[in-house]
């Protein structure tokens, strides 16, 4: 059952559209294909989970844009929120 969604193909995270328990499969559709990974934590409804590993200091992408920087190494399947992302104000004038 699809229980998550991805906004842009380049995103690092999906959004849970149902509450997902630790150990359950996170299931989302990209380009007509159904993809899966295992949740490493409980993912509350409408919260984010990492699709793949994100190294500490790397930008985290949602909407195809940077929403912050990984505060520590984040593993695929981990709940992504304030405990592992920090704010980073980028200069966007030239973008």
């Amino acid at each position, binding site marked *: 059952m699809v229980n998550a*969604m991805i906004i842009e193909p380049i995103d690092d995270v999906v959004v849970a*559209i149902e509450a997902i328990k630790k150990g359950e499969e996170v299931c989302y559709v990209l380009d007509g294909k159904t993809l899966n990974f295992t949740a490493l934590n409980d993912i509350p409804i409408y*919260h984010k989970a990492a699709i793949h590993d994100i190294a500490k200091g790397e930008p985290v992408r*949602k909407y195809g*844009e940077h*929403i*912050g920087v990984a505060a520590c190494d984040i593993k695929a399947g981990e709940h992504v929120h304030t405990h592992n*992302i920090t704010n980073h104000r980028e200069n966007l004038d030239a973008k």
Partner: protein
Amino acid sequence: MKFYGYKRPDGRVGIRNKVLILPASVCASDTTRIISQQVVGSVTFNNQNGCSQVGADQQLTMDVMAGYAANPNVYGTVVVSLGCENCQMDLVVKAISERTNKPIKQVIIQEAGGTLKAIDMAVRYAKEMVAEASLLQKEEFPLSELIVGTECGGSDTTSGLAANPLIGRLSDLLVKEGGTSILSETTEFIGGEHLLARRAATPEIHDRIFEIVHRYEKALQMVGEEVREGNPSPGNKAGGLTTLEEKSLGCIHKGGHTPVNAVYDYAKQVDPKSGLVIMDTPGNDPSSVAAMVAGGAQVVVFSTGRGTPTGNPIAPVIKITGNKLTFATMEDNIDLDASPLIYGTKTMEQLGDELLNLVAEVASGKQTKAESLGYTEMAIARVCNYV
């Protein structure tokens, strides 16, 4: 698509027909409350400002007062001042007259001989004005006459996934009909300002978008604060939003996909039939809604993930959520459920047409949930402390 509204002498079209009892300052606000309670068909609000403000701060208050009086949902205005405040009666009347030629009456409490005499005078003026207003007949108008304010409050992840994109769809449809959509909340452009600037109609508007964002951040830094201290809020975070950038990237969906044709300062009068425009307002909902209504918005479309009751004294506020749990628990506050977009049970085209229909119905007189509950809270943005 058309709606039934009220033609005003200044050429604008209202969707409600209220008499405004306008307090020129905090010192007249209890008096206007008592006056409005005596006059069915009138509205007022608590003006916390109007005195002891530096120039730039007073200007925000003056623009909201003048804009409320000029808003086409208002038939006419009874201005009530104490008499000694900085927002002097002649200044308020001049500011209103620069925006509209609608009926206006004045009562100065200190000159009228105190509270009871001022109330007596203002109640009589207001009752006469309501009687005149009640004679007006509605006429049919195209949607191009509408200025729609867009706002998001109590946001969560679903705001960016469903409710704000749906408002963006409405904005695109309204712009196609020749109307006007206002995108607001400058603090919630932060992290997405480059995406808006790319859609600027001219290089000047492009630069203005960056300017209002940087100006806002700097103004807070000048008093040693950061915009992120209160934004995202605890409720935003509980709803899955992690950073201000993430919230902003969801917020700006309310602007749809059309070019940005203008950037207005807080509460300045917006030209009708302008397509998509931006107004520089705070993320704080009541003061942002107040600015757009002062700009001439007859109706506000408001997304909420957590569930926000916000109304307005002058303009109906249509509430939309993308969160199926919030719609289930707070249906008494929310006019439209956008969550089918997330679960694929309705398309954007279907829900966009539903929302456009709802806006036309509300414009023709249908009560919103916030109106039926009597919600009229509002605030006016501030530059700095009182003096």
